[in-house]
C-alpha cells in the first residue's frame, strides 16, 4: 500500500473548512484509491492511499489541480461573507 499525506495552512479555519467541503465531494474514480480530508483549526489535512504508486501519483496530481483552483477562487472572491439573513 502506498500513501501520501499533505497538510496545508489556510488564512482562517473557515477557509480551510470551505476547501475541505469543496474537495471532499467527488469520489475517487478508482476503487483502489482512497482519500480522506480533515480540518484542524486552519490546517487542511489530506491522506491518500493506493494499491500502486502510479495510481497514487495520478490521484494526488489531479487533486492538486483542484486544490489550486479552490485556493485561487478563495483569493479572488474571498474572504467569506458573513451570513446576513436569518436562515
Amino acid at each position: 500500500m502506498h500513501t501520501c499525506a499533505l497538510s496545508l495552512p489556510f488564512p482562517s479555519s473557515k477557509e480551510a473548512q470551505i476547501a475541505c467541503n469543496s474537495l471532499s465531494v467527488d469520489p475517487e474514480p478508482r476503487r483502489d484509491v482512497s482519500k480522506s480530508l480533515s480540518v484542524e483549526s486552519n490546517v487542511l489535512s489530506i491522506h491518500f492511499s493506493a494499491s500502486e504508486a502510479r495510481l497514487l501519483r495520478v490521484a494526488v496530481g489531479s487533486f492538486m489541480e483542484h486544490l489550486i483552483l479552490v485556493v485561487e477562487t478563495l483569493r479572488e472572491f474571498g474572504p467569506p461573507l458573513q451570513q446576513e439573513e436569518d436562515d
Partner: protein
Amino acid sequence: MATVIGFEGSANKLGIGIIRDGVVLSNVRHTYITPPGQGFQPKDTAKHHRDHILPVLKQALKDAGISPAQIDCVCYTKGPGMGAPLVTVAVVARTVSQLWCKPLLGVNHCIGHIEMGRLITGAVNPTVLYVSGGNTQVIAYSRKRYRIFGETIDIAVGNCLDRFARVLKLSNDPSPGYNIEQLAKKGEKYIELPYTVKGMDVSFSGLLSYIESVAKQKLEKGECSQADLCYSLQETVFAMLVETTERAMAHCGSDEVLIVGGVGCNERLQEMMGEMVSERGGRVYAIDERYCIDNGAMIAQAGAEMYSSLNKSGGWGTSDCVGISGSWCTQRYRTDEVEVTWRH
C-alpha cells in the same frame, strides 16, 4: 425576486450567466477551440476551464452589475457531460456558494436547454428537439417529467457533423458545425447517404462511417466537392430529425416545436423543421447561438425554476440536488430522471 448564477462546463464551452426573474443580466462564454482535424479531450478541456473560469466569473458579475451578496442561489451543471470538465466547474461553484453563503443547486444540462428555450421563445408546451454534440433527443412534457420520445441509439447528430468536419479538416472556429453549414450552402449535388430511422430513434454512426469512406474516394476522383458532401450530410441527418419530431408531434397532438442545443442554431435545420410544422399548421420556436449553444444563463434559468419551487414546497431538506454534500457530478444523467416540480 430571485437572482441566480449558473455555471456550465460539461463540454468544450465554459459559461457563466446570471438571471433575475427571467431577465438575462449577463451570459459570458469562453470556448475551447482545438486545431482543425482534432476533437477536444476531457483532460485538455478541464485545463481550459481551470484557466478561464475565474476571469469569466468576474466578467459575468461585472456585466450584470451586481455584487455576490445580491445573488440568491448558485447553480452548476451536475451532468450529463465529460467528467473532468464538469468537476472543475463544480469545484468553483461549491467554493463561491460557501464564500457567499448561498444555497447550491445541481442542474441537469438538458433541462437547462429546455427551460432556456421556453424562456426565450415563450413557447408554452412544445415538442422539443434537443440536438447538440453530445445529445440528440425528441422530448415532450407529461406529468412532471420531460419524457424522451426518441433519441439517438449511438452518436449525437452534432458529433456526427463535428467528426465529418474533422475529416475535411475544417476549422473548429467558431464551431465545426457552423463551418459545415456555410460550406453546405455552396453544395449543388446530392449524394445519397444511409438514412437510419428506427421507430422513434435515429442512428448516425453508420452514416458517418459511410460518408467518411465515400468522401475520400469521391474527392480524390473529383466526383464531388466538399460542399456537396456537407450539403448531402445536412439534408440527410436533418430529414431524419424532422421525421421523428413530426411523429412525436402526432403522438402528443402538439403543434409547437422548440429546437434547442448547439445544432439548433443551424438555419437549414430550422428551415426544414419550419416547412414540416407549417404543413401541420403549427409553429417552430428557434433561438440564436447565444442561448442555443451551451451557456451559463440556461443553467441559471433551470436553477431559478428549481429554486422557486423548492421555496414554495419547503423541499430544501429532502431534495438530493441541494447543498455541498449533494453536489457531486455525474456523466450520465437522463433528461427524464428529473422531477419537473415547477410545471403542472
